[in-house]
């Protein structure tokens, strides 16, 4: 099997697993919706204020939701020994790790992107800003899966792994948050969002190149 086929087989497996446990996917999605809905309750229903915060709130909620689903990336495969078998295959770890990260994004990132416009409407974002929000999430959420995979791999099988992942991963998410929310802000204020989106794309490319190696090293550390 060539590299692409391996990634595709792995993707199909991960997606099948996700479809068998639909609850997990939906939990993360509803978490995203609930967190975003809490903000108006906390800061008051003033439409002007909400329009100003909307992009940032949706992005923060996306960060938290993405982090919440990180535990699933390797944990169940680690528990039943599948991960060990994967490490033992002659396929370079970087290949199947990329496949797993892609699957994680498809399962936990893409649903967020699909729901985000609804939340944006609740915050009163303009239609142009909604488009930018979706596009920024499209560029940014894969980075969350890529960087998050490092944290997930390092905390494999540790007690209190979930809280630990947030401490490790959230500071590293900050640039994505800044540029993602900044893009929406730029669209709302008329300053334009191209610069933010370009930087987000740059971060995505950089993360896509570097993180598989870091995750492979992290898995080696956690499983020896």
């Amino acid at each position, binding site marked *: 099997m060539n590299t692409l086929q391996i990634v595709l087989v792995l993707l199909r497996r991960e997606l099948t697993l996700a479809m068998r446990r639909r609850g997990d996917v939906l939990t993360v999605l509803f978490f995203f919706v609930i967190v975003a809905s809490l903000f108006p309750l906390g800061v008051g229903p003033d439409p002007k204020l909400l329009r100003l915060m909307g992009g940032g709130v949706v992005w923060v909620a996306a960060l938290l939701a993405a982090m919440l689903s990180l535990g699933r990336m390797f944990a169940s495969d680690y528990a039943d020994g599948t991960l060990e078998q994967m490490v033992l295959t002659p396929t370079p770890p970087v290949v199947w790790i990329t496949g797993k990260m892609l699957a994680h994004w498809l399962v936990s990132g893409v649903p967020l992107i699909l729901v985000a416009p609804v939340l944006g409407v609740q915050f009163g974002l303009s239609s142009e800003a909604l488009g930018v929000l979706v596009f920024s999430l499209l560029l940014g959420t894969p980075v969350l899966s890529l960087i998050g995979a*490092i944290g997930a791999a390092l905390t494999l099988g540790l007690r209190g792994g979930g809280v630990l992942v947030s401490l490790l991963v959230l500071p590293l998410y900050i640039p994505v948050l800044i540029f993602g929310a900044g893009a929406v802000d730029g669209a709302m204020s008329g300053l334009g969002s191209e610069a933010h989106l370009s930087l987000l794309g740059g971060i995505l490319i950089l993360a896509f190149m570097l993180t598989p190696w870091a995750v492979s090293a992290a898995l080696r550390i956690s499983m020896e």
Partner: protein
Amino acid sequence: MMSSLNWYKYSSPATFYGLAGKAIPWFYGAAALFCVAGLYIGFFLAPTDFQQSEAYRIIFIHVPAAWMSMFIYIVMAFWAALGLAFNTRLSFMMASALAPTGAMLTFVALWTGALWGKPTWGTWWVWDARLTSELILFFLYLGFMALQAAIDDPRRADRAGALIALVGVVNVPIIYFSVRWWNTLHQGASVSFSKAPSMATIMLVGMLVMALAAWMYAIAAALSRVRSIILERERNSQWVAQMVEAEA
């Protein structure tokens, strides 16, 4: 002759333990000396600032702490990389010995910054690029220490910590520039160091002497901590048993 000197000798915890023990008093002594000199310059020789009056004197603590907090993270990542590359246990121990000192200095920098900000800017905290990136640096230190604390197996703790330190050091410039840009786009830097009047030479000297004091202190503290870590890790080895016997 340099080439005949065996540098690897001190990469063994047992030999390094003794070397560190001999070096610590010197570094603490130097730290105390520089600290006294720096505080004397800071409090008695440096003139009162015509804009910020006496409150500015906190920079003699604040700036050295901020410098060292960043520098220690880089040194920590250096030891982590060395450990991963050469598989030397002592390098990992140095990395984990540096982290608490670095976190402490980051905290001191944040705290003194707040104390300085209140009389000067009229507020304890602004979301200035420097302050925010210093806060994130504090989070990175905490993450490193929390990860190491959560892992019982020392070998895995060493390596996992080293990896997260390296990932962090790659991210630090990205975080710094993104925060800087975020800040300028949002509100424009209302207060920045670059606008401040250039510093009198005596103030700069005082700050540099205090930075040396912080540096010496950081080395001494890290060496004392690494000695504890060595003892803890090697408690079942023969040389520790012999040392305890000899001291008893």
